[in-house]
């Protein structure tokens, strides 16, 4: 625990508070010193930890993969290149299986979401107190190390996907086709408002479900790690170890589900006839 005087509730709250840099109500910018201050900042604030960790992880992924791509050898692939190629193969297979259109962007999109989410989720397996304690020793009061337990990160991704869905729907079907798909289906033109309501919910549910599924799973997992960390230190391993092993599955599964749904949504956006 960060400090001996903390109650359990305060400990949990402390762990769930992002490091926030934003505009105080009085107009000046700075780091929030408490959860209340962070809340008062409203929309004009950044979660520095979420942005920082997700950027570092994404950059690591792209750095290593781009290096492997640059050194890609046809005759004698290195061990890491083999690893990267097996992932590429896996993604490619999934894209081929679910995506029927022709778009060179879908496969890299799927690869990026898959690996980035895996890396961000994996931060959950770092013992919950290590990095926050280290940051506390350096004078940083709040630190949330798992970007995917911040809805900003998951919604940030799903909004990107949503924009792509809208863009490709309009590009592939034409504005008229897309509007027609939203309004004339499933009950014909006499039920237009009802159709629009149904299809609108259907459309909006895509990014919302994407973001909330990932966020919910990772948030719950993190919460359980935090609760386990409240136990006496000598018993913690008996719960945190099985949970961590189980959590490896969730880390991979959530990344895989997110990627698969992205591919499926892209495929739906590219389908012309309905």
């Amino acid at each position, binding site marked *: 625990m960060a400090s001996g005087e903390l109650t359990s509730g305060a400990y949990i709250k402390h762990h769930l508070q992002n490091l926030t840099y934003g505009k105080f109500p009085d107009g000046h910018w700075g780091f929030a010193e408490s959860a209340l201050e962070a809340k008062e900042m409203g929309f004009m604030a950044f979660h520095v930890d979420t942005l920082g960790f997700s950027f570092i992880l994404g950059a690591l992924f792209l750095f290593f993969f781009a290096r492997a791509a640059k050194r890609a050898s046809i005759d004698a692939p290195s061990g890491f290149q083999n690893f990267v190629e097996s992932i590429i193969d896996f993604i490619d297979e999934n894209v081929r299986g679910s995506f029927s259109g022709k778009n060179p962007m879908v496969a890299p*999109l799927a690869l990026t979401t898959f690996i980035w989410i895996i890396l961000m989720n994996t931060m959950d397996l770092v013992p919950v107190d290590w990095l926050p304690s280290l940051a506390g020793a350096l004078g940083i009061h709040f630190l949330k190390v798992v970007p995917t337990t911040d809805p900003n990160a998951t919604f940030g991704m799903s909004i990107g996907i949503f924009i792509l869905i809208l863009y490709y729907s309009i590009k592939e079907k034409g504005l008229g086709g897309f509007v027609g798909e939203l309004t004339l289906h499933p009950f014909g033109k006499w039920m237009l408002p009802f159709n629009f309501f149904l299809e609108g919910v259907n459309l909006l549910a895509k990014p919302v479900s994407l973001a909330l599924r990932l966020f919910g799973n990772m948030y719950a997992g993190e919460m359980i790690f935090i609760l386990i960390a409240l136990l006496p230190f000598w018993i913690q391993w008996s719960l945190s170890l099985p949970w961590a092993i189980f959590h490896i599955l969730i880390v991979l599964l959530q990344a895989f589900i997110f990627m698969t749904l992205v591919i499926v949504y892209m495929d739906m956006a590219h389908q012309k006839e309905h």
Partner: protein
Amino acid sequence: MNINLTLIGQTIMFAMFVLFCMKFVWPPLVEAMAARKKAIEDGLKAAELGKEEHALAQKNAEDLIESTKTQAAEIIANADKQANVMIDKAKGTASEEADKIKAHAKSELDQEVVKARNELKNQVSTLVMQGVNSVLEKEVDSKAHKDMLSKLSQSL
């Protein structure tokens, strides 16, 4: 758990990552994999082709050996035949020559015999004449009986 500018930051970051991945990560890796796939396919095809060529070459070589063998056998048979002919011919000439020599020798022998007989005849008749001469020196005129004597020697 507040929704704030982080959302927009994350969206922009995500877009940048995807763009980077699309430009610098995905295409070279996929190209390298495709190139390797092609190289392996080509290699296998070339190996198959080489195998076929090898089989063909082996068959050609076997055919060549076969035809050479038959040719060699023919040549040997011909040579045998020719040798036989030559031997036969040589035998013929030899026997002919031998016959000729034999005939020649026989005729020579015959002549010798005749000559010797004649000589012998003459000698015998001379001897007879001498004996007769010495016996009948007085009673017979050699001149008178010469004709008879010569007739006698002739008939011997």
